[in-house]
């Protein structure tokens, strides 16, 4: 057991070590300070945070509906919402293109009415990463709501709390750990998203090129920048993990 676990841990640790070894440490400041890297980092952070916020606003109500409402075809709705979890992201991106692209089913009337074009724009990046990442918050919050003993909410109501007060004072606080971990997973998925983004929003330098896209491009031409970009992503992701761990990711 121990030996297998050691092999497994090595499997996770080795790529990181490889990355560290190949990192041109002395050139790192200038590499990370380059416009390409800074643009990509900005786009990735903005898009992933926006996706997380949208997932919170839309995903949590979806989770409530799936956990609490009874209606015909609920299992179909759930499958639909969770589809991006198993769908190859490229296919997701292509589907978004057919729906929201300039000639898309919804995209064309949207463009005609407002002039908004989603593909190859920052908003397109947000749409693509949200599509792929939102199911994480839906699935974790729905599970938490299902596991929540409804008697707690009943008790709150009998103690004089109205619907909103029950939600605010009991339901949300009690599912908070799951909500936060769902949002963290959503953010992480959005931050590292590649396939749907490149398919739907393209790879426009300084506009839709996110960190993962920049890494991929740089791998072809400029290994040093690719390594630096990768290291930056590892650093940001680790920072988020560590920041959140002490607050609520304790396995108790």
């Amino acid at each position, binding site marked *: 057991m121990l030996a297998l676990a050691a092999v497994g841990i090595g499997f996770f640790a080795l790529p990181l070590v490889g990355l560290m070894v190949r990192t041109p440490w002395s050139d790192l400041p200038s590499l990370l300070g380059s416009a390409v890297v800074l643009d990509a980092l900005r786009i990735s952070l903005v898009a992933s945070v926006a996706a997380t916020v949208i997932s919170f606003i839309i995903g949590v109500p979806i989770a409530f509906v799936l956990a609490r409402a009874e209606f015909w075809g609920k299992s179909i709705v759930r499958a639909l919402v969770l589809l991006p979890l198993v769908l190859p992201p490229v296919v997701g991106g292509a589907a978004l293109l057919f729906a929201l692209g300039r000639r898309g089913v919804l995209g064309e009337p949207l463009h005609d009415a407002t002039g908004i074009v989603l593909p190859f724009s920052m908003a397109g990046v947000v749409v693509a990463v949200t599509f792929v990442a939102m199911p994480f918050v839906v699935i974790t919050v729905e599970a938490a709501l299902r596991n929540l003993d409804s*008697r707690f909410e009943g*008790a*709150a109501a*009998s103690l*004089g709390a109205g619907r909103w007060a029950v939600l605010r*004072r009991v339901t949300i*606080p*009690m599912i*908070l750990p799951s909500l936060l971990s769902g949002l963290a997973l959503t953010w992480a998925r959005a931050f590292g998203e590649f396939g749907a983004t490149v398919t739907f929003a393209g790879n426009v330098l300084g506009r839709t090129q996110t960190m993962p896209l920049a890494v991929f491009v740089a791998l072809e031409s400029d290994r040093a920048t690719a390594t630096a970009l990768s290291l930056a992503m590892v650093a940001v992701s680790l920072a988020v993990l560590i920041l959140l761990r002490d607050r609520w990711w304790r396995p108790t």
Partner: protein
Amino acid sequence: MTRSGLQARIAIQRSDGFALDAEVAIENGSTVALIGPNGAGKSTVVAALSGLMRIDSGAIELNGVVFDDSDGGVFVEPKDRRIGVMFQDGILFPHLSVRDNVAFGLRSRGVGRDEIKMAVDNWLDRLELRSLADRKPGEISGGEARRVSLARAIVTEPDLLVLDEPLESLDISTRSHVRRLIASYLAEYDGPTLLITHDPAEAMLLGDDLLVLENGAITHSGPPHIIRMNPKTPYAADIAGLNLAVGDAFDGVVTIGSHRLMIPDNAQTGRVAVTFHPRAVALHVLQPEGSPRNTWATEIASMEALGSAVRIETGAPMPITAEVTPDAVASLGLGVGSLVWVSIKATELGVQPVSNDE
């Protein structure tokens, strides 16, 4: 003139096929124990009273205010009912401290900060919870959690108090402690109280009247001694037949009036309730020899055939109920007025501490 207390007829057809149709009436200041086996519909009654489930027919009325009336189309939301519920398993909010749990109801009703603090502190003190005020429910014991649950239910001065299995799964000593706290509160509470339980001793110690709920229907209602004489179901015969006597324990002996019973526990001291099942009572024509130390002579006051058993009430010095087979009645030649020897093994006696006013 508006009627006071609780009047309810609760009929609910649950989606799983279970049907409940129960009438519950409780006067202000009195406690009715709703007793029934698991699955009888006790929780459904609680849910209907507190408004977490709507009734399909009937009506719920408290002090003249209609809460739920299927015909009149009236439904008062749970939050507006002013019912204090001590929920089964406590259902304390795990993310809130003991103090915030107790304060929850007052906060919901917009009571001022100072007033909340005063009321909460008062109950924390009375229920011996002051030192736990800042702990979370996960950090306190089962008995402490029940006290918090009681405090949370009564701090709002509810118009109806519902105690849902308040002592379930507590150990014996904690059980009697919590029961004494509940009893002392009930003594001063002037609203109606519904006690939900499946423990006959608990029902008799805390309740004035019993309501026996079986399979969604009330099969009996009234004081235990009335039900005991004419039980219509085996379950009611079982629970109402339970012998219960209160006396003073010292050094392994409980003195009940002029009578003495040996109990297995020498350490038990003070006021106790002794319970034993009618089937644990043996009757003899001649004085038995050997093991049972609790033996006395008496005469048979009444006999009643009860399905496959015969229920016998004995007279002085300590009237009790015994249950024997018809064969035993025949072979011993028992009849009303017969002289018999009663014997009960000490190990068959349930002994629990009670307070003086129970």
